[in-house]
């Protein structure tokens, strides 16, 4: 019942966020100097006519606002200014699946690496696995993804030509960008797993597990890791955000035709409909992801359900 109420509240929250961001984008697009609706900007005649028809610029402002909201709800963000004849929706539909697949790979990689590193560090506390984690954690938070990406690209596709330097389509295209994106979340999550495990290892049921004759490693893997799953799930939302913003630069470095690279291009070209459409999609996706990870954490860990 509580879970149902939480789900309903989550749905309302998403709608609220989407409305607020859509409203903000509507206002911004009409305020920015040199924005899409100011007359200073030289536009191809076809684009201007299409835009005037599309945004019904002769209607009163409140009417425009309502129409805009209805269009946004239907995922219709209008026409791209720098890709004549293409709608923002088409561009997003082409780039998003690529970015989503890369992001999912990076997230899976970081969760897997975090559990492995965190468990090894907790079991080998104060010995070398712990130091490996310390180094990974320190470099994860100190090396920005675009620097790590450039480093990997330089060494593993140029100096030692093992992996493709960029592009998209084959499985080997995933590895270097996914590592670049996963470093920061791995650093964060691995410390979470380690701290959670160290706490669990002091508990009575772990004593029982050991008394039953389970090896330390088995006890940790079978009984301990389950209890770190809750906090890891709860922190997946911010990690997904880090991967998403990281993809802006990583996709450009590795020449991946995803949404991140298009977003960066649209910023460079001041292609406002595209910027605003992609921002809206990103924000809604992340808020949904945040809520899902929060719900998953709550349903898994009864201690979190109070709030």
């Amino acid at each position, binding site marked *: 019942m509580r879970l149902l109420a939480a789900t309903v509240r989550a749905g309302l929250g998403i709608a609220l*966020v989407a409305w607020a961001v859509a409203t903000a984008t509507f206002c911004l697009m009409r305020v920015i100097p040199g924005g899409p609706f100011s007359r200073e900007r030289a536009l191809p005649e076809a684009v201007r006519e299409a835009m005037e028809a599309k945004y019904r610029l002769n209607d009163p402002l409140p009417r425009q606002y309502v129409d805009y909201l209805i269009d946004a709800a239907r995922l219709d963000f209008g026409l791209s200014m720098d890709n004549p004849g293409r709608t923002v929706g088409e561009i997003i539909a082409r780039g998003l699946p690529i970015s989503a697949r890369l992001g999912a790979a990076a997230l899976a990689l970081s969760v897997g690496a975090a559990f492995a590193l965190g468990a090894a560090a907790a079991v080998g506390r104060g010995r070398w696995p712990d130091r490996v984690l310390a180094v990974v954690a320190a470099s994860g938070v100190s*090396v*920005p993804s675009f620097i790590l990406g*450039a480093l990997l690209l330089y060494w593993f596709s140029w100096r030692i030509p093992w992996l493709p330097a960029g592009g998209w389509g084959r499985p080997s295209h995933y590895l270097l960008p996914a590592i670049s994106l996963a470093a920061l979340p791995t650093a964060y999550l691995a*410390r979470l797993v380690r701290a959670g495990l160290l706490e669990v290892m002091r508990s009575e049921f772990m004593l029982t597990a050991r008394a039953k004759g389970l090896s330390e490693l088995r006890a940790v893997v079978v009984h301990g890791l389950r209890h770190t799953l809750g906090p890891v799930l709860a922190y997946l939302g911010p990690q997904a*955000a*880090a991967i998403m913003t990281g993809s*802006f*630069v990583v996709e450009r470095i590795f020449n991946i035709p995803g949404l991140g690279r298009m977003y960066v291009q649209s910023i460079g070209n001041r292609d406002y409909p595209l910027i605003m459409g992609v921002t809206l999609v990103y924000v809604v996706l992340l808020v949904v992801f945040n809520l899902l990870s929060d719900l998953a954490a709550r349903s898994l860990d009864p201690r979190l359900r109070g709030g």
Partner: protein
Amino acid sequence: MAASSRPRWMERLRRDRGAMTALAGLVLLGLIVVMGPWLSPYDETSQRLVRSFERPTAGHWFGLDELGRDLLTRVFHGGRISLAVGLMGALLSLALGVTVGGLAGLVGGAVESVLMRLIDFLYGIPLLLIVIALMVVLGQGLANVFIALGLVYWLNMARVVRARVAELRSQEFVAAARVLGVGTAGVFLRHVLPNAMGVIVVTATFMVPQAIFAESFLSFLGLGVTLPHASWGTLAAEGLKAMRSHPHVLAFPASAICLTMFVFQAAGEGLRRALDPREAELD
């Protein structure tokens, strides 16, 4: 409490070798960035196109860039910009965050719940995305980078300060001060703020590398500082274009960014261990 805990945190800090090393690193970094441009025999802007992309030599320790400018000198100057962005971003968000968080925590009630709802709401959106949107609206430039970072990164500070202040609010010495007739502002400035200083300093220290990172990210996207300023982010973005044949132009600014981020993070962790031992239990 404030008076008696001061020697204790200093003692803890002094015995923490990692923290002291990191703080020494911070001082060194500050010195390098302040003194570097004066000590360098080269000018940041003087170009020698014939020596474009020359590798590091005894005369030019970091080599030359595309236009034949001394890279070491450019890294010194870039450090000034990057650290200025980091410190200004941290200061602005400190001022906003402490004000809003302190107000919410101290006043409580409807003000607190409205402000915190608003902050939670904004927090669900990735901060860097808001910074990017702001930079698109404000336009490029050093001042706008300060403004955009300050306007966005205070959210975390406000959350941290609110939590600490709300905790202090219910304590006896605050109640005693109120009973003695001290006004809200007096209670906040004289009794609550000194006790919240630990978390504020720690959070601000972590904010500096975040701001430096955000700026380098913006520069990479072409939204950061503009000429004549060049931050480490600008230099790294330039270096990326040429890194295949001339890796040194990326390697040096990139290392400067990473080292600075590391030193600030380590200093932040060290300060947290000393000032806020309860929160540092993770290790």
